[in-house]
C-alpha cells in the first residue's frame, strides 16, 4: 500500500522534472496500461476473451469528439458523458453477447468489432447525421498542451488498477473469478454469471471509452478505420498476456515493456513489430501462462528463500 502511494505521488509529480518527450512516452504507457488493464478485468478475472474491446474505444473517441465539437461541452464533461454512452451500449450489446461461451464469445466479439467499424464508416452516409466523417475521419481542435492528457490517462490507469485490486478481495471479484475458472460450477454454486459478466463488461467499456476519448483529443485527428481497428485489440491482448492475466499489475508491466520496445524499434518496423507481437502471444500462451508477473513472483520467491538461508 505504501509503495503504491509513493509510486503514485512520484507519477503525479513527474511532470515537474521530466521533459516533453518523457511525459509523452509516460502518457502513452498509461494509455496502454489502462487499455490492457480494462481487457484484463473481463478476460483475466472473468475468463471471457473479448476480441472486440475496440468497439468502446471507437465509441469513446467519437462520442467525446462530437460532444466537444457539436455540443461545445468542455473536454472532461464530454469524456464523462462518452463513458456513460459506452456503458449504455455495453449493456445493450453485452446482454446477448455475453451469453456466448468460450470461443463463441471470442469470435462473436471479433465480428462485433468489425461490424462496428463498417457501421461507423457508413454512418454519415446512411443516417445523414454526420458523426464519424466516413473514411476521411474528423479533426478536433488543437489541444492545450500535453499535461492534461498525462493526468487524465494516469487517472484512468489508476482507476483500472484499483478496480483490479478490488476484484482480488471483494465478493464481486470472488464470484467473477469463479465464473472465469468454471462457469457451470459457479452457476451451480449460486453465481448469477450473466449479471456479473455484464457488470464487468460495462466497467471495462467505461474505462476503454475514457481512454479512447482522451487519445482522440490528444492526437486531434480520428478516423473510424483506426479507432475501431483490430490492431488496438491485439495490443491490449498481448500486453495483458505478457504482463500476466488476472493480476492487477500485470497489464502495467506488459504495457510498459512493449511501449518501450516499440519506442526503440520506432515506426519503421511496424510489420516486424506485429510479427513479434504474434510470436509473443504464441510463446507466452504456450510456455509462460502467468506472464511477467509470474516471472517476477518466482524471482521474488527465490530471492526470499536465498535471503532466508543467508540469515
Amino acid at each position: 500500500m505504501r509503495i503504491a502511494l509513493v509510486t503514485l505521488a512520484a507519477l503525479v509529480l513527474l511532470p515537474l522534472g521530466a521533459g516533453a518527450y518523457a511525459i509523452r512516452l509516460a502518457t502513452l504507457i498509461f494509455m496502454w496500461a489502462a487499455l490492457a488493464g480494462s481487457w484484463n478485468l473481463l478476460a483475466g478475472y472473468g475468463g471471457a476473451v473479448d476480441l472486440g474491446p475496440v468497439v468502446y474505444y471507437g465509441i469513446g473517441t467519437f462520442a467525446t469528439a462530437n460532444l466537444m465539437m457539436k455540443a461545445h461541452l468542455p473536454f472532461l464533461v464530454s469524456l464523462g458523458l462518452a463513458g456513460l454512452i459506452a456503458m449504455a451500449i455495453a449493456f445493450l450489446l453485452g446482454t446477448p453477447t455475453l451469453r456466448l461461451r468460450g470461443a463463441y464469445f471470442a469470435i462473436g466479439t471479433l465480428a462485433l468489432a468489425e461490424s462496428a467499424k463498417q457501421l461507423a464508416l457508413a454512418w454519415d452516409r446512411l443516417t445523414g447525421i454526420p458523426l464519424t466523417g466516413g473514411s476521411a475521419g474528423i479533426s478536433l481542435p488543437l489541444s492545450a498542451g500535453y499535461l492534461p492528457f498525462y493526468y487524465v490517462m494516469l487517472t484512468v490507469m489508476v482507476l483500472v488498477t484499483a478496480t483490479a485490486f478490488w476484484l482480488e478481495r471483494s465478493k464481486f471479484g470472488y464470484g467473477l473469478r469463479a465464473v472465469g475458472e468454471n462457469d457451470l460450477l459457479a452457476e451451480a454454486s449460486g453465481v448469477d454469471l450473466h449479471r456479473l459478466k455484464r457488470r464487468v463488461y460495462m466497467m471495462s467499456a467505461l474505462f476503454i471509452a475514457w481512454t479512447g476519448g482522451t487519445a482522440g483529443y490528444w492526437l486531434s485527428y480520428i478516423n473510424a478505420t483506426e479507432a475501431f481497428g483490430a490492431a488496438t485489440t491485439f495490443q491490449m491482448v498481448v500486453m495483458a498476456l505478457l504482463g500476466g492475466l488476472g493480476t492487477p499489475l500485470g497489464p502495467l508491466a506488459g504495457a510498459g515493456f512493449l511501449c518501450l520496445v516499440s519506442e526503440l524499434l520506432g515506426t519503421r518496423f511496424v510489420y516486424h513489430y506485429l510479427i513479434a507481437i504474434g510470436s509473443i502471444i504464441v510463446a507466452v500462451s504456450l510456455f509462460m501462462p502467468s506472464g511477467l508477473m509470474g516471472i517476477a513472483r518466482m524471482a521474488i520467491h527465490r530471492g526470499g528463500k536465498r535471503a532466508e538461508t543467508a540469515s
Partner: protein
Amino acid sequence: MTNDSVRSVEQLTVAGQTILNGILQGGVYAAAAVGLSLIFGVSGILNAAHGELVMLGAFGTYWLFKLYRVDPLLTLPISFALLFLLGYALQYLVLNRTLGSPLLVSLLVTFGISLILVNAALRVWSADYRMMTVPYLDRSLTLGPFIVPLSRLAAFAVGVGAVAGLYWLLQRTELGRMIRATAQDREMASLVGVNPRLVYALAFGLGSGISGVAGSLVAFYSPVEPNMGLTYTLFAFSVVVLGGMGYIPGVLWGGFALGIAQALTETYIETGLSLLVVFFLLYLVLQFMPAGILGKGRIE
C-alpha cells in the same frame, strides 16, 4: 407490355440474379468454412488463423499464375498440398502442446499465429490488392435472363466438390473412420492404437488444405491481399454456426445462407454493410437456433 410489367420483370430478374450470385458465392464460403468445422470437431480447437490459410491459398494461386503461368485450375492441388503441410506442421509442432488446456489457450495461440502470418504476408507482398485475369475464366454463360461468370461457376463447382469430397473421405475411408473415432473419444482411440496427436495433425492438415483450395478459388474472381483473412475467419465461423457446429454437411447450407444474405444486402441495402447483416444473422441463430439452421449441430 406495360411499363409496370416491364419494371416488375426487371425487378424479378435482379432478385433472381442476386440469389444466384449468393448461391455461387455460398459454395466457396462452404469450402472456406469446412476446414474450420472439421478442426473444431476433431480436436476442439477453434482456429483464429483460419482466414489466413485461405489468404495463403489465394496468394499461392496468384503467384503461381503470375510468375510461372500455371493454369489456375492446376494450382488447386498445389495449394492443397502446401497448406496441408503447413497445417500438419502447425498442429504437430505447436497446437498439440495445447491439448488438455482450456480453449482460451489454443484460441490465443492461433490468434498469435494469424498475426504472424498476416504481417509476414504484408512484409513480403505489401498491402496491395492483386487481381489475376485468366482469359478462359473471364467469359460468362447466359442462362435466360441470368448471367453466370465462368470463374464463379468453376469456383462454386470446385468448392462444393471439395466439401463433398471431404465428407466422403470422413464417411467412407479408413482415415475418415480413424478421424471420427478420435473426435468422439480420444482415449478410446488411443487404446486401439490410434495416435491422437497424429490424427489431430492430419485433420488440421486436411482442413487447412481445403481452406487453401478455397482461397485459390477466391483468387479466380476477386482481388487478393494479405488482410483478407480476417473476413474469411469471420465468414467461416458464421457459416459453421449457421450450419451447425461439428456437422460437416451443414456448411453447405450455412454457406448458401450466408452468400444469399450477403448478396441481398449488397443489392438492396449497402455494399459496405455486408458484415453487419451477416453478424446480425449470426446472432439470431446463436440466440434462437444454437444447433444451426438445420438443428443438427452440436451445442456447446
